[in-house]
């Protein structure tokens, strides 16, 4: 019964899908009843606190915890010594959650305590004596790549080169993508522009700090309650780190106060579990905002060279990019995705993108909404914009001329399926925003963006209750309203009103494995699985109806929420509604439920075009965002309000990245702005309304045509705003954030 991409036809007429229904978790969230990570308590609970390195790079000679252990109320102290051998796949996680031989960045955890009160835990932290040997550090990506840079990991030899080097360095790996003869392509061009760009690291900035409550019994069974984008991932990683059976650990995902990729890994959960194991008491650990910024995962900071050739008619002849991403103290920056996404919007004969994954004394980067892509798009779209300006060409026309389209070869290799880039460009060109007049010191910017979108491992269970209502259990934490959209897809398929379906996030013991909520996959993959589960249940209900009527199941169809004879030949039978069948479920064969366990495939890539107007104050360098319009392909907007919400939220995160957000490190390698005061995310008064235009080019890989929408929206804004500011200021901006001092400097005023 599962949907077969390419074989089954796509549904285009909907009753519930496409409507703006109230969300199932709404009431709890507007009344304060919703329980987030830090809101859970347990009897006998202890408070856990983590001691963090004040140094960017230091050898840990010795940790003396004896005085901390002696504090009244302290029940456990753990260090790296409490985390034993573990599988290779989680080695870096183990090093990151608790420093072993070296502290690798300011904020790196070195010890943790659990005590009966926060005050006692705080007192104990102060009494832990760590003997550090401070080492030279490096935080800038270009500096880290220099041969003279301090080597952070002497076992790191650059991969991806023709020959593995003999000397260790901070360059973990080289990646290359592309096709065609780039040099020849550049030679053909009427104009070639080459520029270097830099972007600073930004943080996902979710408002809810990481929080968890772990409880481990002496029988080896444990429970974790935490805010995460993937509780199955938490189970896997924590059980591996503590040498437990995976099924002995049950993880329940709390309501999650934002993630944006930052909660796709673990930081405090294994520590809380280790503290609980040692103290034999439940332990709650909640990060402070400063800990979130210093020690969870921000993005990479980057340094990027772009060279693009264009003919006078706007044809791009070749594109070449070298991307250097610093991903913190461990390998694994998002540079391959940046390199793959850099030119994805263009159908090019010759293209090359080379990426370097670089380590530095900063927190290990984590995914942030389309990881790696915004910075690459920023650099490429800036040069395309400059070429358009130099050749006096319209930036939307040029993009339409070169746009990737159905079947064209993507810059990262494969050929595209059905895609919606052109549709977004055409929508932008037809929109009144594009023709609106600009005033003095004002400018307009255009940019496009792309993200892959994922499917992945997904498990859904749909239970038909005796009263004809539906319990729908999914395993992908809801970070933006996905319970509403998934529930609505199940309701659509079953033909019942949306409010008869209650969608919940089940714990790891109650449902099969699910990949994390990432890659814009949830509405696509959990939605697909929910549709399949509904079809599974429908099949069973049709069997029951066939039994009741005494006809073959092939002669029964499901329509409008009821089983019906498929043709007059099947006999005259009154339709049996879902509620009718559910009421008789016990007597006709037992409970009815539908399941789907899949590795969801067929996620459709997503493109967007953003238009933005800004005004630059030439005396202060202050940039005001005047007007912003997002055009993005959603395939099919299941819940338009939350699709718009994703567009708007991504655009505004991009505005923050472009204008004011940055990790500022001092000369000593410590983070200078570890708080919301100086890590400046946009506030309400900084912004205009964000117009969201939903474009729908159905994804052939989903029964309703759904594409993921969460991530693409953050890809174009960096470039769109930079192009707009460059237009307003009359000077090309090449560094993010475009903070007022940088703008003023670019204007030559200081």
């Amino acid at each position, binding site marked *: 019964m599962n949907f077969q991409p390419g074989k089954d036809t796509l549904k285009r007429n909907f009753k519930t899908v496409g409507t703006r229904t109230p969300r199932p978790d709404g009431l709890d969230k507007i009344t304060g009843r919703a329980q987030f990570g830090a809101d859970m308590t347990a009897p006998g609970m202890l408070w856990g606190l983590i001691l963090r390195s004040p140094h960017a790079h230091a050898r840990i000679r010795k940790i003396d915890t004896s005085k901390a252990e002696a504090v009244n109320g302290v029940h456990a102290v753990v260090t790296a010594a409490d985390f034993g051998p573990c599988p290779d796949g989680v080695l870096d996680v183990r090093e990151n959650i608790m420093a072993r031989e070296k502290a690798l960045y300011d904020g790196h955890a070195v010890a943790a305590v659990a005590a009966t009160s926060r005050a006692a835990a705080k007192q104990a932290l102060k009494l832990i004596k760590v003997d550090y040997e401070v080492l030279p550090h490096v935080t800038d990506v270009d500096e880290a790549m220099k041969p003279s840079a301090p080597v952070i990991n002497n076992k790191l030899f650059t991969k991806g080169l023709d020959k593995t080097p003999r000397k260790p360095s901070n360059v973990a790996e080289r990646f290359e993508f592309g096709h065609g003869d780039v040099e020849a392509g550049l030679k053909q061009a009427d104009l070639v522009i080459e520029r270097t760009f830099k972007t600073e690291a930004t943080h996902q900035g979710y408002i809810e700090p990481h929080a968890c409550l772990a409880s481990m019994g002496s029988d080896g069974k444990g429970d974790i309650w935490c805010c995460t984008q993937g509780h199955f991932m938490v189970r896997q990683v924590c059980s591996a780190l503590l040498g437990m059976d995976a099924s002995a650990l049950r993880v329940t995902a709390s309501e999650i106060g934002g993630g944006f990729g930052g909660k796709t890994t673990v930081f405090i959960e294994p520590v809380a579990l280790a503290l609980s194991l040692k103290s034999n008491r439940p332990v709650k650990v909640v990060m402070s905002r*400063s800990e979130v910024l210093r020690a969870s995962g921000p993005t990479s900071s980057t340094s990027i060279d772009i060279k693009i050739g264009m003919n006078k008619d706007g044809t791009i002849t070749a594109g070449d990019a070298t991307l250097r991403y610093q991903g913190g103290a461990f390998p694994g920056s998002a540079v391959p995705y940046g390199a793959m996404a850099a030119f994805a919007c263009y159908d090019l004969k010759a293209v090359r993108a080379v990426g370097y994954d670089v380590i530095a004394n900063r927190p290990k980067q984590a995914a942030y909404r389309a990881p790696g892509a915004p910075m690459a798009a920023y650099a490429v779209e800036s040069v395309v914009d400059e070429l358009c300006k130099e050749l006096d060409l319209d930036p939307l026309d040029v993009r339409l001329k070169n746009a990737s389209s159905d079947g064209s070869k993507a810059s990262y290799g494969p050929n595209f399926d059905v895609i919606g880039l052109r549709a977004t460009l055409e929508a932008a060109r037809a929109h009144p925003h594009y023709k609106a007049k600009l005033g003095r010191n004002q400018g307009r910017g255009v940019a496009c963006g792309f993200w892959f979108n994922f499917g992945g491992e997904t498990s859904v269970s749909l239970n038909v209750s005796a009263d004809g209502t539906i319990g729908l259990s999914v395993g992908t934490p809801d970070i933006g309203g996905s319970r509403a959209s998934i529930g609505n897809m199940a309701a659509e398929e079953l033909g019942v009103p949306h409010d008869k379906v209650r969608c919940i996030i089940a714990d790891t013991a109650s449902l099969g494995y699910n990949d994390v909520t990432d890659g814009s996959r949830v509405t696509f993959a959990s939605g697909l699985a929910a549709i399949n589960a509904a079809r599974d249940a429908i099949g069973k209900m049709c069997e029951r109806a066939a039994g009741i009527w005494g006809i073959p199941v092939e002669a029964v169809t499901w329509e409008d929420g009821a089983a019906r004879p498929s043709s007059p030949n099947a006999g005259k039978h009154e339709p049996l509604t879902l509620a009718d069948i559910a009421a008789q479920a016990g007597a006709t064969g037992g409970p009815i439920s539908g399941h789907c366990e899949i590795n969801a495939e067929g996620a459709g890539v997503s493109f967007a075009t953003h238009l933005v107007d800004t005004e630059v104050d030439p*005396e*202060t*360098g*202050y940039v005001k965002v005047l007007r912003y319009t997002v055009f993005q392909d959603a395939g099919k907007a299941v819940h338009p309000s939350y699709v718009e919400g994703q567009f708007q939220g991504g655009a505004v995160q991009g505005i923050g990245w472009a*204008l*004011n957000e940055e990790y*500022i490190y001092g000369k000593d390698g410590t983070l*200078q*702005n570890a708080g*919301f*005061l*100086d890590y*400046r995310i*946009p*506030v309400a*008064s*900084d912004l205009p309304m964000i117009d969201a235009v939903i474009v729908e080019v159905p994804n052939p890989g989903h029964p309703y045509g759904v594409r993921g929408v969460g991530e693409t929206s953050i890809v174009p804004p960096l470039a769109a705003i930079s192009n707009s500011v460059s237009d307003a200021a009359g000077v090309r901006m090449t560094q993010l954030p475009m*903070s*007022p*001092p940088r703008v*003023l*400097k670019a204007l030559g*005023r*200081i």
Partner: protein
Amino acid sequence: MQYHAPATVKDAVKLLAGSKGSTQILAGGTDLLVRMRSGFSEPDTIIDIKRISPMCKIARDGKGFAIGAAVSSAEMSENAALAKAWPGVVESAALIGSTQVQGRATIAGNLCNASPAADSVPAMVAAGAKAVIRGPKGKRKVAVEKICKGPGQTILKKGELIEAIVLPAKPARTGDAYLRFIPRTEMDIAVAGAGICVTLDAKGVCTAARVSLGAIAPTVLLVSRAAKALIGTRIDDEALDALAAACSAAARPIDDKRGTKEFRIHVAGVLARRAAIIARDRALGKS
């Protein structure tokens, strides 16, 4: 830690003078609680002055105003007479933090916190405000610009607290204004700030001026050279250029996470110029 909430200024002074270890006055608490949380400040005693009723009031002081040390910036904004007389001071207080912070934050606390970037301080200095200090030896009035010695340091002696900020009666044809620069529209600490107060004669010529700059030196500065650029002029473009130049020349800022030295120097002049126009127009009754 001990918490006291005395009912009279006398009791507060007594507690303050008699306390052992470190003691902090709690007015709005919007700085103190942040410092306590980060571990920067670990007081042994906290004296909450919000139960002292005279300190929670804005009183007319002759033709001027006495703003109790526990009066929040929101209460200042809601006082029509004060807002009419000293709009620059009231607006500067209304720039401190968020609506939530303004519901608690006080200008006396802003002053005692002794940050060079305190928003209300340049405005108070420009307006010629004085701090009423109470201590074991009685009362003294000190000009606001003399209170801070350096970042985090004031001239207050053991046992002393600020009871109120006194704003003088506003002379005729006088206007004040305060502008600051922040990278966002709200919620930031000033990268640079300028408070200006000017008095004009009947012909619109400036007869008196006070110019104060924030966040460009270890303490808020009163820049007499910048004031001189305005006095005797109609605060025209030429005078404004001279004012901006004098302000930039007086600035001796540092590079930090909030802005560069060169940026602060430049923007101090820009802000002074813009604030002077508002102050002039207010003095002329234009706004």
